[in-house]
């Protein structure tokens, strides 16, 4: 199957063609914010990183932001730096390949003059991108993120298994799908190990999951049960394994082909596991940094969050949330509970929604301009 996307120099396809303006450090956020108010249709990313942290966090944020400036949904990039920070705008721009990219440094000209220069650059970028056309692209060119958040008792019954059907359809088309949230895999390491396509990969994944379990126990002590617990005994979940299988259900039934680090770009196709925490925004940042052009996000309680430059498709597990949060949810898997649909029916609906979104149809979170940014940070602030 095909969709129409923007072909990039590195062979990947964008499902959007955004101008991205990004801070290299939080001190530059004011200029990025000003440019976003002048050009409301560009994508801006302001954040709390770029300085005052150790090498591990610097590396994580640099890898994630490099992935974002190189993201196939981004057609042109302007990075705004301060000048004296650790993560410099020039370094971000150096990481960009095959598309217009520029850096401005506030300490060289001040906020007002930097903003003025930024306006000229963005106007030029917009004109350049207007001339680019979508072209036929194979569905195998997609990398789709699989996410769940604000889960309820029905997430593992309706929405996640339906997303699993869509994931299998995508993999059947030769595409890649990436599931993160290793915290939500605790209790299923022995099962996921058996789904890996080689014993060595199975060992790697099991070690990763057991490592997250230890991390949660060490960090939270007696409170670890809040994370490592069936989650919803009233909702019918009898063990941590059952709860985590409900999360894993969104990965479908195909073999696990790769296990990648946070924000790393997968080498191949099929089902990929990424080392991300469960926290919604940090998990989406990892997938976006790894190049996911679309994220599908299932939710029971409901959440409006999207991510900069990446369409986030929402699937509700029940019809109440779909109706309560009208305009935030793209697909209602609650129709399995009250409208006679099967998991396969809704899986097909999600798949069709992914193709529509790839062709340019805005997801609810995009229409609502809900583009929330955060990135994994684990060390101290200095």
């Amino acid at each position, binding site marked *: 199957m095909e969709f129409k996307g923007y072909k990039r120099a590195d062979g990947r396809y964008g499902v959007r063609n955004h101008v991205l303006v990004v801070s290299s450090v939080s001190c530059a956020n004011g200029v990025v914010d000003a440019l976003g108010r002048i050009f409301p249709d560009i994508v801006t990313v302001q954040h709390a990183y770029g300085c005052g942290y150790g090498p591990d966090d610097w590396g994580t944020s640099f890898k994630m932001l490099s992935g974002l400036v190189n993201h196939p949904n981004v057609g042109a990039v302007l990075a705004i730096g301060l000048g004296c920070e650790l993560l410099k705008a020039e370094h971000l721009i150096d990481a960009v390949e095959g598309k217009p990219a520029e850096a401005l440094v506030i300490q060289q000209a001040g906020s007002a003059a930097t903003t003025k220069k930024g306006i000229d650059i963005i106007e030029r970028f917009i004109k350049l991108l207007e001339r680019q056309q979508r072209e036929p692209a194979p569905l195998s060119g997609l990398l789709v993120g699989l996410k769940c958040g604000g889960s309820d008792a029905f997430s593992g019954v309706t929405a996640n298994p339906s997303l699993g059907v869509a994931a299998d359809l995508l993999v059947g088309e030769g595409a890649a799908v990436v599931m993160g949230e290793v915290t939500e895999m605790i209790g299923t390491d022995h099962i996921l190990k058996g789904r890996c396509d080689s014993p060595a990969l199975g060992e790697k994944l099991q070690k990763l999951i057991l490592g997250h379990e230890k991390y949660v126990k060490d960090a939270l002590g007696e409170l670890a049960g809040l994370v490592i617990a069936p989650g919803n005994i009233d909702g019918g979940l*009898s*063990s941590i394994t059952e709860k985590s299988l409900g999360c894993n259900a969104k990965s479908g039934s195909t073999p696990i082909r790769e296990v990648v680090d946070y924000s790393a770009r997968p080498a191949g196709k099929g089902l990929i596991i990424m080392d991300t925490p469960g926290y919604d925004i940090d998990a989406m940042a990892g997938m976006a940094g790894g190049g996911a052009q679309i994220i599908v996000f299932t939710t029971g309680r409901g959440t409006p969050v999207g991510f900069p430059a990446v369409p986030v498709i929402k699937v509700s597990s029940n019809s109440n949330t779909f109706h309560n949060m009208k305009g935030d949810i793209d697909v209602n898997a609650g129709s399995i509970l009250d409208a006679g649909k099967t998991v396969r029916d809704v899986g097909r609906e999600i798949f069709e929604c992914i193709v529509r979104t790839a062709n340019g149809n805005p997801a609810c979170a995009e229409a609502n301009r809900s583009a929330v940014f955060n990135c994994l940070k684990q060390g101290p602030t200095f």
Partner: protein
Amino acid sequence: MNSNALKVNPRDNVVIAIRQIARGEDIVVEGVKLLAAAEDVAASHKIALTDIKAGGNILRYGEPIVQARDDIPKGQWVHVHNTRPIERI
């Protein structure tokens, strides 16, 4: 016939109620009547499809999730009151 339960994986020995099911009510999956509920079961909870011996695995998503603590006759509610976690080797 309207379905009131879901079977997630063909290997499963439980089904999931998608609404409150009353004792004696037929359990219907994708339009097919499978058995009668032996007790009241709340929505999103599990019901045994077959007789499960004490120590036997409960399979959901095609995988063992818990072990039966007592014999669980088919049609019964399956939860923490009659199961225990599976010991990891």
